[in-house]
């Protein structure tokens, strides 16, 4: 019912999408797969009216259409869940969710009671309970993501484009989303789905299209792919192994956390971390994982509790302290506290380690350029030049820049909060290998992730957080997803 | 709560609204009013309209609710300040205008006529140039009553002398730095073609003077301002500035306060106390420096 014919998009002289033709059918889940920067989001944004194609046409129910703005596309029944979160921070959850389609009463006034009722109903359809009067800024990233999905569902569109909707979700919400997608499919809605999580594709998709470097590689029924063949199509080569084996033996204790507490977020968190150890932090959405690691990095200091670093009591009140003490961190909220959008890739990359490049506070630009060159190569960052503004990069590539930034000043303790969010399978494998290498070099890694396979495969130990309290410490070799979830579920 | 009526006779409460205390001339006038009020032992509510007629009306309204005995108004605008007088008169509070006129007639006017300043200045120029030559004029903020009237006065004189030509005129918003830049530009555009500059106040005259001095052209150009501020008098004394038009702040201030007391104590008073402008030149500057 929706057809893209030879769609082409050019940014700054570089084609990012070349003559891509695709067809989306009612009642079908069509997965779009590809590496970071392959052009998936760009394609979806053209179908949703955010970008205008530089070539090719879009056909809707057999008619050629032009979507000048998202409004046009929405009017035709095409809704989208965006890869980047789009909260309006000071409007409440209900107003965000039903933006542009607020229920009005006979006088033309917004009917607040109905607004909240409807919003709650949509959230409930995703198995989520949220206070819809909360301002959006108070939500965690995962909660915002759920609201974004509900926002698209509420449009009751005929085509829903989902750009990595589960990137920030934990299993519980993912399951609810899949149930909702099942319902949509049954209702004859066309779903276009992008993800970097392989298991999801095979659970959901009826058909799969693979994009590589802006070109359509193939479109086939999902059943005709195997995980390996799909990966091969995406990356253009075979990927030997995703998870490296955990071999390093942890060394002496580097970090001790004692009784860390912050009102309304977490209570009495105590653990130790050793050199070369990869410690996993698991939990459901809103369990407080982000808050705990934010406290360690000085982003949101704890109310009480002690942090001992290399045996010494240490006070960390701001990220600058943490960096000086040998911490490095990749934050969960890429857009909010990660990238500086208008700055170049190079300047974003070197920002946290700028001392290194400015002895006597004068910048050594050739050293910066050299560091950028090696980082773009090491992390396979796809940018037209180091001077390109980071906001023009694909989401996954932005994430890689942030990872590279955190590593540039060689931290002893690396905190990764959902580090593989939005990263393609090839790059994920590289990051996993990197974690392995870092751990072998003696770096302690604190890994927060909602992807349980990742946590199970990469870590030496797993801590489970439940509603702000540590509920278990598990050995990844002797546990499984079900056990972790059992400890994570609210009692 | 104390009541306003509890005042003893002779202990008058007078409201004074200054046009703009950040401009030197009106500030001096305000100071003179305050000094005289102290001398005569009356209570003064002193407010500043900051060149905003609307604000001046508000201040008059405040005076009315404070139940002052007399209001002295240093009007911002001819037309726009008139409602202030209407309001006061409706509340049966006598009003004295000081320094400039309004359309609505006050009970008493103490001051001088801005048009007269323009006439005196341009006459001085005409006399100096022998009725022949090119003149530049620097305006105050466009649309303000002092600008309008000084401009009108100057033009009346220009109309009388066919040989006197207004080569160019422009606003410098009463501001010395702006007049300095403007004169610098005029020197470029009209070099050697003008013999006199009339600035609507001394601030701007000082700016024009600086530009001419820096270009080494002062000896060819006659410069005259209005107000006789201290610096201008010094400059006249030193032979740098040719002339300024003296406006008697102290005389106006005293006159206003004295009339207020007469009116409040229901004694006969003069409806119009004119304190004339005088041209200050090197010859008579000493007598003004003493004041």
């Amino acid at each position: 019912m929706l057809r893209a014919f030879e769609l082409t998009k050019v940014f700054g002289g570089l084609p990012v999408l070349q003559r891509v033709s695709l067809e989306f059918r009612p009642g079908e889940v069509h997965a779009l797969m590809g590496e970071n920067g392959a052009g998936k989001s760009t394609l979806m944004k053209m179908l949703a009216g955010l970008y205008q194609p530089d070539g090719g046409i879009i056909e809707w129910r057999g008619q050629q259409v032009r979507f000048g703005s998202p409004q046009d596309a929405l009017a035709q029944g095409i809704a989208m869940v965006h890869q980047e979160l789009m909260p309006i921070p000071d409007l409440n959850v209900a107003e965000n969710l039903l933006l542009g389609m607020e229920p009005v009463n006979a006088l033309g006034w917004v009917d607040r009671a109905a607004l909240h009722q409807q919003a709650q109903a949509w959230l409930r359809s995703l198995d989520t309970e949220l206070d819809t009067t909360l301002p959006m800024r108070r939500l965690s990233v995962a909660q915002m993501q759920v609201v974004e999905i509900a926002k698209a569902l509420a449009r009751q569109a005929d085509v829903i484009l989902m750009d990595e909707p589960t990137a920030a979700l934990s299993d519980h919400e993912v399951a609810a989303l899949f149930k909702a997608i099942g319902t949509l499919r049954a209702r004859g809605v066309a779903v276009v789905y992008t993800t970097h999580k392989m298991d999801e594709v095979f659970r959901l998709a009826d058909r799969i299209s693979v994009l590589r470097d802006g070109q359509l590689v193939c479109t086939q029924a999902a059943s005709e792919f195997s995980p390996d063949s799909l990966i091969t199509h995406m990356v253009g080569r075979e990927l030997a192994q995703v998870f490296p084996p955990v071999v390093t033996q942890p060394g002496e204790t580097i970090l001790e956390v004692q009784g860390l507490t912050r009102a309304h977020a977490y209570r009495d968190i105590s653990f130790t971390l050793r050199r070369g150890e990869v410690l996993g932090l698991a939990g459901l959405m809103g369990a407080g994982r982000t808050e705990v690691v934010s406290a360690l990095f000085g982003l949101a200091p704890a109310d009480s509790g002690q942090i001992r670093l290399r045996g010494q009591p240490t006070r960390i009140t701001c990220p600058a302290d943490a960096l000086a003490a040998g911490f490095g961190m990749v934050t969960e909220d890429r857009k909010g506290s990660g990238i500086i959008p208008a700055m170049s890739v190079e300047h974003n990359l070197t920002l946290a380690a700028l001392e290194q490049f400015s002895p006597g506070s004068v910048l050594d630009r050739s050293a910066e350029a050299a560091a950028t060159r090696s980082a773009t190569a090491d992390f396979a960052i796809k940018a037209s030049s180091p001077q390109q503004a980071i906001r023009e990069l694909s989401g996954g590539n932005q994430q890689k820049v942030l990872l590279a930034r955190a590593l540039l000043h060689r931290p002893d303790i690396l905190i990764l909060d959902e580090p593989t969010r939005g990263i393609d399978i090839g790059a994920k494998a590289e990051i996993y290998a990197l974690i392995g290498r870092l751990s072998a070099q003696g770096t302690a890694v604190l890994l927060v992730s909602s992807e349980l396979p990742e946590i199970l495969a990469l870590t030496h130990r797993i801590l489970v957080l439940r509603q702000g309290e540590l509920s278990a410490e598990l050995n990844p070799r002797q546990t499984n997803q079900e056990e972790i979830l059992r400890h994570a579920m609210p009692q | 709560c104390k009541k306003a009526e509890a005042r003893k006779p002779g202990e008058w409460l007078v409201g004074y609204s200054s046009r703009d205390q950040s401009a030197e001339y009106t500030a001096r006038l305000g100071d003179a009013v305050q000094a005289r009020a102290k001398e005569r032992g009356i209570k003064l509510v002193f407010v500043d309209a900051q060149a905003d007629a609307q604000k001046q009306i508000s201040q008059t309204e405040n005076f009315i609710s404070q139940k002052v005995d007399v209001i002295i108004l240093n009007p911002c605008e001819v037309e726009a300040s008139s409602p202030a007088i209407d309001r006061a008169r409706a509340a049966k509070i006598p009003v004295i205008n000081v320094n400039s006129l309004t359309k609505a007639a006050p009970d008493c006017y103490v001051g001088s006529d801005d048009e007269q300043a323009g006439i005196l200045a341009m006459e001085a120029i005409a006399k100096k140039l022998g009725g022949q030559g090119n003149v530049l004029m620097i305006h105050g903020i466009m649309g303000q009553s002092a600008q309008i009237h000084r401009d009108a006065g100057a033009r009346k004189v220009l109309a009388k002398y066919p040989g006197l030509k207004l080569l160019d005129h422009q606003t410098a918003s009463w501001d010395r730095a702006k007049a300095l830049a403007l004169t610098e530009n005029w020197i470029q555009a009209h070099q050697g073609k003008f013999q006199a500059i009339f600035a609507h106040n001394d601030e701007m005259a000082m700016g024009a003077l600086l530009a001419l001095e820096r270009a080494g052209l002062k000896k060819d150009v006659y410069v005259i301002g209005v107000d006789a501020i201290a610096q201008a008098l010094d400059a006249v004394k030193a032979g740098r500035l040719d002339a300024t038009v003296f406006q008697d702040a102290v005389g106006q201030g005293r006159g206003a306060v004295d009339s207020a007391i007469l009116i409040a104590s229901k004694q006969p008073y003069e409806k119009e106390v004119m304190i004339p402008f005088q041209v200050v030149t090197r010859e008579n500057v000493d007598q003004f420096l003493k004041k």
Partner: protein
Amino acid sequence: MKAPSLHLDRNLLHRLGIVAVLLVIAGALSATTDSFATASNLTNVARQISINGILAVGVTFVLLTGGVDLSLGSVVALSGVVCALFAHPGEHSLVVPIGMGLLTGVACGLFNGVLVTRGGIAPFIVTLGMMTVARGLALILSGGKPVADMSPSLTNLAGDLGPLPIPLLCFGVVAGGSWLFLSRLRLGRHLYAVGGNEQAARAAGVSVPKVKLFAYGLCGLLTGLAGVVLAARITTGQPNAGQAYELDAIAAVVIGGTSLSGGVGSVLGTVLGVLLIGVINNGLDLLSVSSYYQAVIKGVIIVGAVWLDRRQARS
């Protein structure tokens, strides 16, 4: 319905710092002067805040979308001049001068809006340009002289209706209407959305240019109204009126908690900000504080009030 009253309370709570400062100042003034707490003086304050109030409510819309309008003062002067030009006694009926004044305001506002939305120029520059252009036009149209001789039927608009000053009624209607508009209408909520996150609003199908254009246009309309009220009050179209009015208006809005980056704020806060500025101006005059010290004190009180307010809002 419970939700709206809750909403009101929340906003009030947020602005508790300002209310406290307001009460303290009012209390101090009642204690130190005979005249502050009299009916006639309070009517005075009401009359005096009306023009700034109308402007402040107007510019609240623009600030909510993340824009700014520096042309308020000049457009007030221009609308006043245009209104006065059509207000000579016996020439036209009352609606003509009022209508022309409002129209002038709307035209300036829409022009700003078009340049911001279609032209993609920063609102600061657009409205700074409009500030000098409108001032120039006011001077050209009036020939540089105040436009006098306005018919009494128009200047009476600055008078009273029963016990209430008509300008205050205008302000009241404008503030009340705007409050309802912003809190109850979809377009009102969309204004917040555009200011809060333009991209997100666009992606959700809100027509961002339309919303912005509306905000500038409405602000222009209210600026025109302020111009007409001012002309009535000073019984002239004064081409150099309204100097720096934009600063007082924007200050009132920001004191009231509206963010200059858009998306946060309320008409209620704006009204409180307008009141605070009005009471300070009135009080300093009543106390006959020297104008040099007035400037210092006023600056300190405003910054202090906002500081208290934000501190309390955070805790």
